[in-house]
């Protein structure tokens, strides 16, 4: 008979080991899935996790892609992790990402063809504000009316997608686009483009922002009173109230920060790799970032590594689609599986596994 006994404190060793264990288990289960699809599992796993980095033919193309994909994932996940730690569930980052991109691109398109140094910084501010404002809707409804922020933030993703469609077909449509939907390509607008900072690395302003966010949140959580309050509110809401933590302020701060960071991610994407506002511009980074946040144990350094790993599965997935004909949806299922395993093996860090029946005391 297997029995679980709660640990007084989560095991430090297992906290580090469980994500690795979950990745290993996912590779096994994913390999099984690929085998069922009629592909060689070993080749498939190698194509996803090894070839993007080390294949002599493709690596030169796919290595820079690693930072391009990891940038937005890390930026969004860092913001989400703050709220998740405090028990505030913003799962609508996808919508905030869209609104940030729209606000930032909107500034650039409104001022086109202005060529000024301040245009890009202005777009960055607008992008952050766009995401922040969208996240303030669930925040205010939560603090003012106690409305569940999970449902509101998620439902607003669908509203944001409609706003995106409306903008791509209407206000922001390229007047020289020959009637096709979609805005001007911001990459062809030098003052507004988010260009590669170091050629051939994929490093752009969004990736730089992600690294800065990692460091800032690390300092916030370990050195600042606000970080302490966030951790306290998540671990013991009652103790937090006695310690004078204002729960409403935390909701506004956590949702606002995660919204602003998601908005920034959207802005850097639309001004950089994405290029234009169009229907389907959002690729689900806002949802994948939830997996990244948990895989990284809600810790800034962990999220950095998890973001890189998740980016690898995106690139490897594309490669596997191209080389082996593995459908892209398989990668999505693969990522979902990873979160399952991660949450499952978490039991090891929170509980002792004991064999045998405990004798009556």
């Amino acid at each position, binding site marked *: 008979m297997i029995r*679980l006994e*709660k640990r007084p404190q989560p095991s430090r060793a297992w906290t580090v080991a469980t994500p690795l264990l979950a990745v290993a288990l996912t590779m096994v289960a994913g390999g099984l899935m690929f085998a069922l699809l009629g592909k060689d599992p070993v080749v498939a796993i190698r194509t996803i996790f090894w070839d993007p980095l080390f294949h002599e033919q493709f690596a030169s193309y796919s290595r820079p892609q690693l930072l391009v994909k990891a940038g937005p994932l890390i930026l969004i996940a860092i913001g989400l992790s703050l709220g*998740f730690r405090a028990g505030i*569930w913003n*799962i609508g980052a996808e919508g905030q990402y869209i609104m940030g991109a729209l606000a930032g691109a909107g500034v650039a398109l409104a001022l086109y063809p202005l060529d000024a140094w301040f245009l890009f910084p202005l777009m960055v501010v607008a992008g952050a504000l766009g995401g922040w404002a969208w996240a303030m809707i669930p925040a205010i*409804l939560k603090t003012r*009316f*106690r*409305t*569940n922020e*999970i*449902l*509101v933030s*998620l*439902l*607003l*993703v*669908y*509203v944001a997608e*409609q*706003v995106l*469609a*409306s903008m791509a077909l*209407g206000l922001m449509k390229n007047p020289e686009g020959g009637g096709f939907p979609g805005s001007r390509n911001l990459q062809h607008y030098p003052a507004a483009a988010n260009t590669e900072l170091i050629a051939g690395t994929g490093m752009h302003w969004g990736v730089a922002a992600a690294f800065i966010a990692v460091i800032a949140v690390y300092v916030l959580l370990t050195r600042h009173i606000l970080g302490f309050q966030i951790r306290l509110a998540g671990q013991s809401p009652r103790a937090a109230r006695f310690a004078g933590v204002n729960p409403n302020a935390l909701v506004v701060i956590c949702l606002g920060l995660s919204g602003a960071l998601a908005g920034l991610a959207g802005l850097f994407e639309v001004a950089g790799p994405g290029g234009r506002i169009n229907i389907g511009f959002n690729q689900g980074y806002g*949802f*994948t970032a*939830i*997996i990244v946040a*948990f895989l990284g144990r809600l810790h800034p350094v962990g999220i950095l590594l998890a973001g890189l790993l998740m980016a690898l599965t995106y690139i490897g997935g594309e490669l596997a689609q191209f080389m082996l004909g593995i*459908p892209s*949806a*398989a*990668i*999505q*299922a*693969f*990522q*979902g*599986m990873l*979160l*399952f395993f991660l*949450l*499952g093996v*978490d*039991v090891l860090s*929170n*509980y002792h596994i004991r064999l045998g029946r405990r004798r009556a005391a």
Partner: protein
Amino acid sequence: MDFGAINPTVLAASLMVASTPILLAAIGELVVEKSGVLNLGVEGMMITGAIVGFAIAVETGSPALGFLTAMAGGAALSLIFGVLTQVLMSNQVATGLALTLFGLGFSALIGQGYVGVKPPALAKPDLGLLADIPVLGRVLFSHDLIVYLSLALVVAVWAFLRFTRAGLILRAVGENHDAAHALGYKVVRIRLAAIAFGGACAGLGGAYLSLMRVPQWTEGMTAGAGWIALAIVVFASWRAGRVLLGAYLFGGVAVLQLNLQAAGVAVPVELLSASPYLVTIIVLVIISADRGRAALNAPASLGRVFHASS
């Protein structure tokens, strides 16, 4: 603009069809939440049910078999959530999200070969004289079996929770799992059963969407229906009768906005398409603003991890 194109009788009839997937998912989730478990994976279970039911119905030519498999598929997926949250004691919010993310990917994977395929239709029962009643016959008695099944399910869940001993035990587990455990009830087993029931309902709702309402398969076709079902349970203050009201209110908005789009009303199409989500948010706000009611009815152990200390 042509309001004459909108026929109230047809509108009311299609309202019932439009509401059924959400009604099924919401009534299942109601039972799950009454047992003290918050499963945010409704969307994932619905879309899995949608594709599993669709695929089986197409392959076998039997929609009935499709619906049954969809229920089994939804229940199987929900049991992954059940094992993780009840046996391995993972966080319910995160696990539910994982279920949704996985379900969306998994369904897209299976659904690859089924885009653009037309499914076999479920025969409608002939209600004879009833269906010939003017207006009322068209609105109420011209539907397929699943619509009536969903209504019967609402009544059954209401009666189960209110009048049966098993329903009382389920509610006790949801209100205070420690006390229920002390009384000797198998908290984990009862919750697993409730979760599986919720999964089967969500799977059936999803299959109704892909086999009857649309009817075809497209990736991500549930488009937030599972989340709206979750919102409806909150709106209903965890009462079966109000779930029906909420689902039909939502179905009404969904059908009305489609008809307004078709009629070419001078409102942006995107605003109309977003209206079901906006209405859901507004309704949620109104319900939660009422301080006493919403909070009092929520099961007290909702979303809390149960770990038997002895």
